[in-house]
Structure formats: structure tokens, C-alpha cells
């Protein structure tokens, strides 16, 4: 009886003209299984790069002044969320490949996290940071999500203000914060960080104090980063700073 089954199966194969699927179909199927694995790695690496970028450009020098709440608010949650999503997708997809299930989820997840971080680091070191900086400087909801500094820097009562420069004077500037409120900012005693261009339309962060007439800035930082990478910045009102501010008009 058992012998009959093999014979019957072969008869069905011959009579039904059944053939093995072609190499192309077999390869396409294999590729179909690997494609999400690769995509998850690529997007996971971008998420890692974004996370590193936000962490590297955080205003961590202000921790002592603003405490633990500042850290909590400054974490790159958007990128972390996507990293987790893509790592989990990667693990799920990898388990579907020919022998992917052999390794177990923990090993695959650890490998994915380390690989995406390594590739994300490589992406940034090859100049990918400029792309992030551009994306995170464009006004809009995506900037607020990707580079979650808007909320952190929207507490003028605590000395943290941010927005876009509307007009620049000798020792003042007009700034429109991200909720649309216009501020008169006294920049007379402001330290202007190296990467700040001070031009209309530029997004900046300000440290200082709220005053009756607006905001007195003690420091002006670029929107992305703390601007300390290119020197210590210039003190407005100390000659060079004044000249520079004036020169921008």
C-alpha cells in the first residue's frame, strides 16, 4: 500500500504535467523573504542615526541648570520608537527566512540593534548628519516630532525660548516663537554661539529671562545643536559681537 502512494504521486506529477517551479520564481520567493529583513535594517539604521543625531545635538550642558526633567523632555523618542519598530519588524522578517528561526528572538534583536547602531554611526560619519540638520530645520510638525526641542525650548518663564528670527536690530531682535507669538528680544548681553548666522528666517534657541517688555537673551544658540562646536561664540556688546550683529543687517 505504502509503495502505491509514491507511485500515485509520481503518476499525478507526470499526468498533470507538474514541474518544479522555475529558478526565477524560487529566487524571487527567497528575495521576498529577505527584502523586509534588509529594509528593516536600512530604516532601523536611519532611525539609529536620527537618534544619535538628536543626542549629539542636545543641549546637555544645561542639565545642571534644568535638571532631570530636561533630560526626559530631550530624549529622541521619535527615533527610538522607529528603531524599536524596525528592529521588531526585522526580527519578525528574519524568523521567516530559511533558517532564521534557529537563532531565537533575543539573539536576533541584539544583533539587529548593534547592526543598526553601527550602520547609523557610519551614515552620520559619512555626512548623513547634514541631511538630518536640514530636515530638522524645516518648520513644520515633522521637525517638532523628529527633533523634539520645540517643547523643551518653549518655556520663556523658565528662561528657554525658541523661534524664528523675524527682524534684527543692533541690540534687539524680533522673534516669532513656534506657537506664533512675537517677541522683542534684548540681545545686548547675549553670547552668540558660533554656528548662529543671525539672519531673518533662521531658527534659534535663546537662554535668558522673561522681562516686562519681552525677553532678555543671555545666549543665542542655533536651532540644531548647542553651537559650541565652532568656538565659544561671541559676546554681543563686546565689540566683535556688536559688529557682527550690526553687519548682518
Amino acid at each position: 500500500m505504502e509503495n502505491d502512494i509514491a507511485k500515485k504521486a509520481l503518476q499525478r506529477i507526470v499526468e498533470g504535467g507538474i514541474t518544479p517551479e522555475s529558478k526565477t520564481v524560487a529566487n524571487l520567493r527567497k528575495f521576498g523573504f529577505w527584502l523586509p529583513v534588509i529594509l528593516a535594517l536600512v530604516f532601523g539604521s536611519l532611525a539609529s542615526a536620527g537618534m544619535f543625531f538628536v543626542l549629539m545635538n542636545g543641549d546637555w550642558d544645561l542639565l545642571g541648570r534644568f535638571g532631570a526633567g530636561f533630560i526626559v523632555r530631550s530624549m529622541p523618542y521619535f527615533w527610538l520608537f522607529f528603531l524599536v519598530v524596525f528592529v521588531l519588524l526585522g526580527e519578525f522578517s528574519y524568523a521567516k527566512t530559511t533558517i532564521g528561526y534557529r537563532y531565537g528572538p533575543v539573539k536576533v534583536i541584539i544583533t539587529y540593534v548593534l547592526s543598526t547602531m553601527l550602520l547609523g554611526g557610519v551614515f552620520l560619519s559619512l555626512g548623513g548628519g547634514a541631511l538630518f540638520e536640514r530636515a530638522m530645520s524645516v518648520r513644520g510638525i515633522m521637525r517638532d516630532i523628529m527633533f523634539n526641542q520645540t517643547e523643551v525650548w518653549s518655556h520663556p518663564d523658565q528662561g528657554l525660548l525658541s523661534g524664528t528670527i523675524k527682524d534684527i536690530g543692533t541690540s534687539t531682535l524680533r522673534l516669532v516663537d513656534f506657537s506664533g507669538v512675537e517677541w522683542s528680544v534684548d540681545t545686548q548681553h547675549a553670547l552668540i554661539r558660533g554656528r548662529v548666522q543671525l539672519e531673518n528666517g533662521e531658527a534659534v534657541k535663546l537662554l535668558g529671562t522673561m522681562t516686562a517688555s519681552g525677553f532678555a537673551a543671555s545666549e543665542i544658540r542655533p536651532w540644531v545643536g548647542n553651537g559650541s562646536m565652532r568656538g565659544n561664540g561671541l559676546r554681543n556688546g563686546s565689540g566683535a559681537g556688536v559688529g557682527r550683529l550690526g553687519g548682518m543687517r
Partner: protein
Amino acid sequence: MIDSEKCNGKTDEELVTRSLDDSSWFFCLAKRYEEKLIRYIRRISGGEREDQEDILQDVLISAYQHLRSFDTRLKFSSWIYRIAHNTSISAIRKRAIRPTVHLEEDDMQKFADTIDVEKEVDANFDHALIQEVLARLNEKYSEVLILRYLDEKDYLEIADILRKPVSTVGNLISRGKKLFKAEYERTIMNKQHGK
């Protein structure tokens, strides 16, 4: 049809390569595995003999159609057992019935010998209960116990057949054995007390 003499001495992988050029070579592979597979299908799906044979035919045809997807990092036996497992499960689902474990008398003896259950409950040992108890276990335990102790597959082969990590297979076997023994003893006790 290839003479079965010609099949001897050829590895599964060689036969796969030859089958891709000439379907009659696939008869060697089909013949080599039909007995093992029909037993496996019977053990995990129960049902009528005709149904089991239909499943096996579908398994062999599906294996032939997907021969190019066979990856030599797996054993051919693991690969074809995987197809048998999946085809049996989907046939059970089509019939919308709970999978039943069906063991022959020699299966039950083999199982009792290898799992050592006899030693622990020897006075009241009852072969017929093995099938009953195994069928009551969660499917994830019964399927690994069947593959390990009746089909005599090693951990890696079971992992490849069921697409689970080797460590998971080890845990399932160890836990499955414990659960089986506990359930077996409970069943014996209940029978003694007429429950």
C-alpha cells in the same frame, strides 16, 4: 519509473539534483520517505487511512514543485517533514477538527521505553493510555515529543521541522516530558478511583 536498485547509494541531495532534470528520479525520494512520512502524518493527524494517504500524496507533490527552494543548509528529511507537518495541519484545519494523536501499538511501546514512564508507574502501566494522555497535552508539547521519541529526530532537526529555535525545542521537550508524566499519573489515579 526508476528501478529502486538505482536509488541505492545516492544521497538525498543527489536525488534532488537529478529530480530537477528528470521527474522519475523523484520516485527514489518519494519511496525513501513514504513509510516514515505516512507514520508521521498518522501520528499527528489521526483520521482515516485514505485521508492520510491523500495528505502524503499532496506532501510529495508539493515537495516536488518546490524542489528548487530546498536549501542544503537543512537536511532533506527535515525539509520534507516540515512540508508533511504543514500539510497535515492545514488538512486538519480544513476538516475543522481538533488534531488527534494516533499511535500504533509499537509506537506506544517505543514511547514508553524512551520516555521512561514505565519505571515510574510500572505497577499500573497501561500502553493504551499513552495515546490518550499525549492527545490531551497541548499540541506544542505533543508534536515535539512525537518527533523526538517516535520519529527519533534530534533537536536541530525538530527545530528545522517546526521552525523554532533549538533552545525552545529543548525546553518544550523537557517540559512536555514532565507534563506527560504528571498527566499520565493523574489519569492512572483517576482510573483507580473510578473517576
